[in-house]
């Protein structure tokens, strides 16, 4: 008995040794950086090592609250973040609508083609999206050329160098990139619908709109609910890549979202400590959002998404 027990134990530890190198990688690259949060409590200037005499306590957090210009700037950044996240949330039904419409297309070949074409943009980088935007929207690009040859406009519109409708245009690019791919998630849910149910409804005289409204749409709502909850949990995190590549001196006022702001103040004037302080505040709020939405999801669906 004891011998078997020992052998089992030895195997348990041996198996642990197999995964240990990977756990060390996780500790180094995901957990160890959390230690960097202490920089928010120091006056950190890059090449010098961190010493106790540079400890400043909550100075950076206080400086945010005390300086009207900083508050003003952060309010602007928050306004942009809320506007862009809010737009995506408000239009989060768009991929679902795409999926429903795709489901109404009966030609299999056509479906396959449009599905392939509309999901492609999801797999190119934001840099490529920007390059495409630059090429298509520049003063001699396709959009301006077509509009001018149709006589709609006389002078080219400088789409990218404008401060107008920045949030909406950022939402449009995001949708261009993601909507086709997001629709696939719903299409997966649609294949789960029992064809007999549609058939039965049809026999009972339900019109196509009624079938969409009473059968198709309700079967997609659980998926939609989860995605909206995830959207809410990530409300403050728009990522920085999209906004970094699209930013220029014309649209800076409107495009700077929280993630980009954290990068810009760190790189722009070496405000490492302030930047870390702001990202700590962001993490705390994000964590609360995640817990709240997860709890809400548990309440409604009986299970969370974590």
């Amino acid at each position, binding site marked *: 008995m004891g011998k078997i027990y020992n052998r089992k134990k030895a*195997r*348990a530890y*041996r*198996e*642990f040794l*197999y*995964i240990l190198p*990977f*756990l060390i*990688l*996780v500790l180094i690259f995901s957990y160890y*950086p959390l230690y*960097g*949060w202490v*920089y928010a409590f120091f006056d950190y200037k890059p090449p010098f090592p961190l010493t106790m005499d540079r400890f400043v306590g909550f100075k950076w957090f206080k400086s945010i609250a005390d300086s009207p210009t900083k508050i003003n700037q952060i309010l602007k950044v928050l306004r942009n973040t809320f506007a862009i996240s809010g737009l995506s949330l408000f239009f989060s039904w768009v991929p679902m609508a795409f999926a429903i*419409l795709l489901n*109404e*297309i009966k030609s299999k070949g056509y479906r396959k083609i449009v599905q*392939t*074409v*509309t*999901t*492609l*943009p999801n*797999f190119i*980088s*934001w*840099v*490529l999206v*920007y*390059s*495409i935007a*630059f*090429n*298509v929207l520049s003063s001699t690009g*396709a959009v301006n*050329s*077509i509009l001018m040859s149709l006589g709609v406009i006389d002078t080219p519109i400088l789409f990218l160098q404008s401060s107008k409708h920045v949030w909406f245009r950022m939402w449009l690019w995001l949708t261009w990139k993601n*909507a*086709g791919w997001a629709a*696939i998630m719903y299409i997966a*849910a649609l294949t789960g619908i029992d064809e007999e149910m549609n058939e039965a409804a049809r*026999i009972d*005289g339900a*019109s*196509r709109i009624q079938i969409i409204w009473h059968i198709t749409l309700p079967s997609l709502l659980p*998926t939609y609910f989860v995605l909206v909850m995830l959207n809410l949990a990530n409300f403050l995190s728009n990522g*920085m890549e999209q906004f*970094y*590549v699209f930013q220029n001196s014309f649209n800076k006022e409107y495009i700077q979202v929280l993630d980009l702001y*954290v*990068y810009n103040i*760190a790189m722009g004037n070496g405000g490492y400590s302030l930047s*870390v302080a702001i*990202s*700590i505040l962001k*993490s705390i709020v994000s*964590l609360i959002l995640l817990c709240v939405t997860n709890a809400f999801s548990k309440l409604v669906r009986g299970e969370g*998404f*974590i």
Partner: protein
Amino acid sequence: MSRKHYKTKKRKMIVSPEDRLITAISYFVYTLFAFVCFYPFYYIFINSLSANDLSERGKVLFWIKGLHFKNYVDVAKVPGLFDAFKISVARTAIGTTLTVATAAFLGYMFTRETLWKRKLWYRLVVATMYFNAGIIPWYITMRNLNLTNNFWGYILPNIVAPFYIVLCKTYVESVPKELQQAAEIDGAGTLRIFFQIMLPVIKPIMATVAIFSAVNQWNSFQDTLLLVTDTKLYTLQFVLYQYITQASSLKALVNSSSASSSMAALATAQTATSIRMTVTVVVVTPIILVYPYFQKFFIKGIMIGAVKG
């Protein structure tokens, strides 16, 4: 309800105006959407092959005008582009191999009930999906580890990818337990079961993870931006971004000094537009080539992910 009655009813429905409207809307919306997604790629592609004086003035909209391939010859002369291509290929190949191998192995190990404190380690890994220390602490960590301006800075942080591990674990769990048990009775150890029994069975999910991971590696931009100042380590994405913002200064470097102003020379002399378009095609082509072939793997991947989520 007689069979005949049902049939006429169905036929009536197909021709009803409401029905036609829905079909028309579906086709219209999707044709428009597909066009908007497809045309930019097509536009850039035909421009990269057209006469450069025409493309610069925005005259190439629907088909190639003045076909020539000189742009693709000249693009090799753009400083740094070939090096960047090598770096991007290397990080994609090495990074993807290590990430997939790790995801498969850990996905398997986390199903081993014999593993010491299995649940704890699994949670430790999966939890990293939900938090992130922020870019500055991450940057400082990388600098302390000497991974700034270092090729391994592209690879090491990406080796353990929790989402892929979850995908693999879900897949391994769907494999009948008897397969492992039989091997165990035959005396196979943990590693032998992995290499000889599991690996052949979980190939489909490994293909899915490989594609996801390769696309991520190829597209990655932010790590170069944060970690690398050494131009030799620039990736294609990063170089493309620089070209877009400074293409006008590049054309002087690429055009030979003896360029005359004859019509023929104008058509092939590099312009800011032609360089931008051609480099864009070079960067996007690998994705477009692998994409249709691997689309089914992607879809399988999100379905497994959706079931899990």
